[in-house]
């Protein structure tokens, strides 16, 4: 247990966004831990958007896929938009073949685009 706690994935807050860059291979326990960690951080900081960078992940299994889409819906009911950025083509194909099309999850090619997407999202909310 302690072993996993040591290997926390850092969550960085910039402005009203949280940035999570996953740079290790995910295992189920780490994924679940990350999920609660992010949700706690959203509550603590009142962040309006979360960017999750998975560009280093070469393999995403159904569990991680479900965790990611679950997290997006959890965050959205806490009034924070989740954007998954930098998914690799092979990962995208795998997820689609697994039937995990992640409806309702926003995606972007890279961190920059993800940031733009969130800005746009904020702008349209402000307009309303």
């Amino acid at each position, binding site marked *: 247990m302690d072993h996993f706690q040591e290997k926390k994935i850092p969550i960085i807050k910039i402005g009203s966004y949280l940035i999570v860059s996953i740079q290790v291979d995910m295992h189920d326990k780490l994924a679940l831990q990350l999920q609660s960690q992010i949700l706690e951080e959203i509550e603590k900081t009142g962040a309006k958007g979360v960017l999750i960078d998975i560009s280093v992940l070469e393999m995403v299994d159904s569990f991680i896929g479900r965790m990611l889409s679950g997290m997006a819906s959890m965050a959205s009911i806490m009034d924070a938009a989740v954007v998954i950025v930098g998914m690799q*083509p092979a990962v*995208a194909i795998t997820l689609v073949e697994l039937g995990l099309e992640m409806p309702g999850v926003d995606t972007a090619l890279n961190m920059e*685009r993800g940031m733009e997407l969130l800005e746009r999202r904020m702008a349209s909310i*402000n307009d309303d």
Partner: protein
Amino acid sequence: MEDKLDLKNVKQRINHIEEVLSSVAAGDLDVRVDSTVEDDLTGIEEAINILIEDLTYELKQSINMQNDLQEKLKKIQDQQKTIVQQQEDLMELSSPVSKVWDNILILPVIGTLDSQRTQIMMENLLQKIVDTGCTMAILDITGVPTVDTQVANHLLKTVTSARLLGADCIISGISPAIAQTIVHLGIDLSIIRTKATLQDAMIYAMKQNKKSDALITSNLDEIEEREE
């Protein structure tokens, strides 16, 4: 009339017949039973000769047939090689992805789609999206003659994977025949944005580009105003 069976000769003649039969069995078909006298054994000797003739004829026939078959097999193998070669050529030619404008990729699809081809097409497109950083991809299927459930499924998969990467996919050039088949098959393409022609798709993509640019600039202006 027939001569009387000469018992002295009989043993010799039977030996001769035996020799002939054993050499035929060994594969020599040119030997025949020689008979000089005509008597009760002559019938048997002649029958054996006829049998050997027949055997020779059948053997020749079967050798010819075998040769024929071998030739045909070779021809078929050659044809198969050509087919494989052509398939590989087609595979290489089949899926060019080109960047035509800022942020816009076009993938023209020509010819029948099968699962292998779509797989390669999908991989090419996704890789290109990542390499160029384009967020708009237009799949033009004007050159696709027919769409069945499998192909429609592949198209859906391609669009969904592109969306997972963060790119929008537009399908253009759906012919009346394809539209009819898709609706008759009960495939729901409503989650995919479809446009009538490549031109319409281009216009839509460029508008979308402009929109996102405008939003970002207005947003930035707003932030600047607030700061002031």
